[in-house]
């Protein structure tokens, strides 16, 4: 499909991102900025118990507080709304927006108080009296897996949401054949993307038009479907306004429970209602935590370091409700061998409930933890054989001529040139020099280590993991759409059908349409109609929009161009293939005849008598794009997951004082190949931002629960976000291996950087502490953990010596 007819004019050029103008002026339009007449505000009352029966709720005093209008309980809401959607077929793991009868994690919302202002609603919430009867609870993942543990949902019978073992290829045979084996455990701590804007939603019900208007800080596929199902109203009664700017998401802005609460209240009270989480609401009970995962990995390899087979057990703690959390164990199946030629894999995916907050999709949808486990395995194989960690990766990489490459779990990788990317990074960074620098730092008494990660970013998000993990789910499309209209004065308007949270989709669509039509993208208007005026789409998840929105915009523009060409051929009395289209004008070589853009527009809009037979008047086209390569349901536990696979190679030098243990990233180089880049500014920003997020995940960020089920990291004083001091200058080495499956050869980059940086930083720290004979097997690796472990190792050594 790749078009190489003319050199690209706008695609891949360093053009400004059009969205930036409004944001630097403070003129973004976020959900908290939506002004609604008569707006009421919600505050929620959290449970202080990790598990308890709700004995009684007394709201009488709250209702007497100034400005308070209403107190909503879970009981009332459960009568008015369906339980929220589960990804798996787990009907007895019911989730309601407010707790019904029982609370299942500390912080879970029990009642919603509605008042004239948020402050008054909070005052009211303080006066609601809830009597609880504490119940047993379970926090630890392994404990939850034990069938004797207290089930979070007694009706479900156990805490196991998913326990599925896949065997792809001859694992037992390969293990038996291999002379070397090793096994280990690593743990990925529960963190999240924690956007600076919390989740917020406002809703208004018009009983005369029977329309529910919703404004939300949302990034979720099929949001309006879920609202309609939950409220039992027709989907065409729900109008989600997609022109709301979203203040960061990176996966987690999926506030369906918040939306159901305000939507119900708006209908119940006849006034618009808004819920904007405060930071504590968001951190503790926004249901936006990420994967919380223990990996047990075993690999079989030979004396040259060739890894032949892998067994991986991934135990994920989903928290109190199911949602889509278990699917985050499914998506990594599409890149379960990473960039390596591992011939067979046994993968056991387990998801358990616990009395922690519910998990939601986080950047990479489970891939970053999996990459951390795979990369740790490769480092350990290198250590076992005394081989260089880069050399061993090169020996195991899929070679560029082997693409498209079918991995054991059924996905065909589109393209890549891993060896070249690594070579470019090593040349850029002077790897030998970097090793000398590390050794010199060590000679000064410092801890210094080099970290390496080579990994994939599956992109173009479809949802093949849904039918793979849930037999009742037959989804094989995850389409995206674009519409182009050329108005009667010749101006071009493109519609995109989603909210955005900083990914620059307006720039993307305008660039692609401008490229195909050969017109200035800055002259193209891009709008976001509400959901009732939208074509089918699945929102910006799974690093998909460059591929899917870019693809839909490309095909729509091609259709528009084809219509113009046909219209022109009719005027010239020639065949369409004779027409030359250039810069919006058409000509017929061999004659002096030419039609300008304005003339095409005029004929299409005003001269029906000049149109070819059967052509509709006007210049309007739509395109609904199916995900490339997605064409069938899973077979025998194998499926084509995402269509495209970006590659990243991280090389990091970390240094720290052994007494203090505060890691400083002295050098950070990343080689990045996401095929053809549509906007270099955007891809660069995604990559740098992803690395920063990975620095948080590997060194700082964790939602820590104590043994009593309380979340300890409830503010930004405890849950630490990387600041400009923690994030180093990052050097990006570019490479471009176009994807054969996309219109310009583009791949995704929305998760780039994040998918490998935790593995690389972990590797660097473990290299730095290796002289002490210790290593860290759990992320985040905090300052205190480093200095304590080194102190303990020194003490042991001294004891042995004495």
């Amino acid at each position, binding site marked *: 499909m790749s078009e190489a007819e003319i050199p690209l004019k706008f695609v891949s050029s360093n053009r400004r991102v059009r969205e930036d103008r409004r*944001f630097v002026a403070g003129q973004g339009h976020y959900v908290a900025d939506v002004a609604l007449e008569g707006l009421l505000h919600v505050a929620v009352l959290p449970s202080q118990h990790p598990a308890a029966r709700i004995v009684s709720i007394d709201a009488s005093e709250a209702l007497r507080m100034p400005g308070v209008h209403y107190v909503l309980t879970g009981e009332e809401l459960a009568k008015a709304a369906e339980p929220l959607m589960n990804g798996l077929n787990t009907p007895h793991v019911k989730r309601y927006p407010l707790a019904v009868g029982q609370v299942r994690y500390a912080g879970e919302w029990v009642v919603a108080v509605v008042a004239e202002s948020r*402050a008054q609603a909070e005052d009211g919430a303080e006066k609601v009296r809830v009597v609880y009867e504490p119940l047993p609870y379970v926090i630890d993942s392994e404990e939850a897996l034990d069938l004797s543990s207290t089930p979070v949902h007694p009706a479900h019978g156990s805490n196991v949401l998913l326990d599925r073992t896949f065997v792809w290829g001859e694992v037992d045979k390969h293990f038996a054949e291999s002379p070397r084996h090793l096994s280990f455990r690593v743990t990925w701590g529960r963190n999240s993307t924690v956007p*600076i804007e919390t989740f917020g939603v406002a809703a208004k019900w018009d009983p005369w038009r029977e329309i529910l208007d919703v404004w939300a800080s949302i990034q979720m596929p099929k949001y309006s479907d879920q609202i309609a199902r939950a409220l039992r109203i027709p989907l065409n009664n729900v109008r989600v306004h997609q022109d709301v700017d979203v203040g*960061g998401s990176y996966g987690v802005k999926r506030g369906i429970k918040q939306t159901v609460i305000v939507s119900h209240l708006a209908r119940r009270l006849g006034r618009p209602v808004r819920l904007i989480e405060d930071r504590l609401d968001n951190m503790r009970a926004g249901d936006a935590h990420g994967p919380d995962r223990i990996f047990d990995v075993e690999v079989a390899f030979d004396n040259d370091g060739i890894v032949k087979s892998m067994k991986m057990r991934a135990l994920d703690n989903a928290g109190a409700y199911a949602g889509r959390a278990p699917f985050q164990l499914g998506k990594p199946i599409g890149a379960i061998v990473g960039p390596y030629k591992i011939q067979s894999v046994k993968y056991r995916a387990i998801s358990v409930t616990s009395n922690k907050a519910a998990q939601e999709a986080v950047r990479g949808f489970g891939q970053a933890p999996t990459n951390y486990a795979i990369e740790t395995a490769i480092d350990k194989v290198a250590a076992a054989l005394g081989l260089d960690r880069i050399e061993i990766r090169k020996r195991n990489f899929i070679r560029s001529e082997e693409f498209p490459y079918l991995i054991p779990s059924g996905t065909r990788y589109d393209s890549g040139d891993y060896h070249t990317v690594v070579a470019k990074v090593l040349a850029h960074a002077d790897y030998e020099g970097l090793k000398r620098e590390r050794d010199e730092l060590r000679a000064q008494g410092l801890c210094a280590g080099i970290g390496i990660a080579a990994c994939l970013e599956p992109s173009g998000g479809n949802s093949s993991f849904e039918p793979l993990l849930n037999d009742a789910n037959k989804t094989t499309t995850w389409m995206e759409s674009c519409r182009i209209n050329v108005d009667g004065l010749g101006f071009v308007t493109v519609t995109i059908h989603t909210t955005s949270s*900083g990914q620059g989709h307006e720039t993307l669509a305008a660039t692609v349409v401008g490229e195909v039509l050969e017109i200035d993208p800055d002259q193209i208007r891009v709008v976001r109609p509400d959901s009732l005026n939208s074509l089918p789409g699945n929102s910006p998840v799974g690093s998909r929009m460059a591929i899917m929105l870019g693809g839909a915009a490309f095909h729509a523009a091609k259709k528009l161009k084809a219509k113009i060409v046909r219209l022109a051929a009719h005027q010239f009395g020639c065949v369409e293939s004779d027409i030359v289209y250039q810069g919006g004008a058409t000509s017929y070589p061999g004659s002096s005849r030419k039609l300008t853009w304005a003339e095409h527009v005029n004929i299409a*809009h005003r001269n029906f008598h000049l149109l070819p037979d059967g052509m509709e008047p006007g210049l309007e086209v739509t395109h609904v794009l199916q995900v490339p390569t997605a064409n069938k349901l899973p077979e025998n536990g194998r499926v084509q997951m995402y269509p495209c696979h970006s590659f990243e190679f991280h090389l990091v030098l970390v240094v720290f004082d052994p007494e203090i243990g505060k890691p400083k990233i002295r050098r950070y180089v990343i080689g990045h190949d996401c095929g053809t880049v549509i906007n270099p500014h955007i891809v660069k920003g995604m990559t740098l931002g992803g690395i920063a997020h990975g620095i948080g995940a590997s060194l700082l960020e964790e939602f820590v629960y104590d043994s009593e089920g309380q979340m300890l990291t409830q*503010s930004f004083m405890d849950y630490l976000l990387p600041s*400009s001091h923690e994030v180093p200058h990052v050097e990006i080495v570019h490479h471009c291996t176009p994807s054969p499956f996309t219109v310009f050869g583009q791949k995704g980059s929305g998760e780039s950087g994040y998918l490998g940086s935790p593995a690389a930083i972990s590797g660097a720290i473990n290299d730095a502490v290796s002289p002490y004979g210790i290593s860290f097997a759990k992320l985040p690796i905090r300052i205190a953990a480093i200095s304590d472990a080194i102190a303990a190792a020194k003490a042991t050594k001294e004891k042995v010596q004495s």
Partner: protein
Amino acid sequence: MKISLKVNGQLREADVEPRKTLLDTLREDFLLVGSHAGCEHGVCGACTVLIDGEPSRSCLMFAVQADGYEITTIEGLAPAPGELSVVQDAFCETHGLQCGYCTPGMVLTAHALLEHNDAPSRDDIVEAISGNICRCTGYGQIVEAVEFAADRLRKTNLPRHARSDANNPGKPPFGGNDALGHGVLTAVQPDTPRGGRA
């Protein structure tokens, strides 16, 4: 209680509860919604405004405490509607943002730095913006934006006091003349044959 605050050079009056923060007052009473609530406990910096020119957390200050100070919000930085300051334009040039939520605070912080320091080093910039958390960019393009703005401000002929109002001296912020189909979008005249052309 009644307060009158000097915001972006104008005296604004409101009747607020003593417990109301400056942030909520700016947003709700003065409809200056460019200042954002992020953490509301003084860590993230999304609510940053300038108070007598210094970056300050409007979420940690009550509106009643702001009486008598010069308050500058992001709305006070653009020289005219649709026109960007040098610092704002620099953020667009390097794409020093993504979702835009931390951006007003970041731009104001950068503006304040450059008011004090004509030629900030990378470390100066990192230090200055370290109280503003950005989850999108990893700060790289923000640092580049501030460096770029500093360079342009140094090269302008305007005296410092006039620079805040200095319009973008470089290339036009939007568009440019690089379109292949230059001129194709000239409006056609409706209802005339061939769009009014020959």
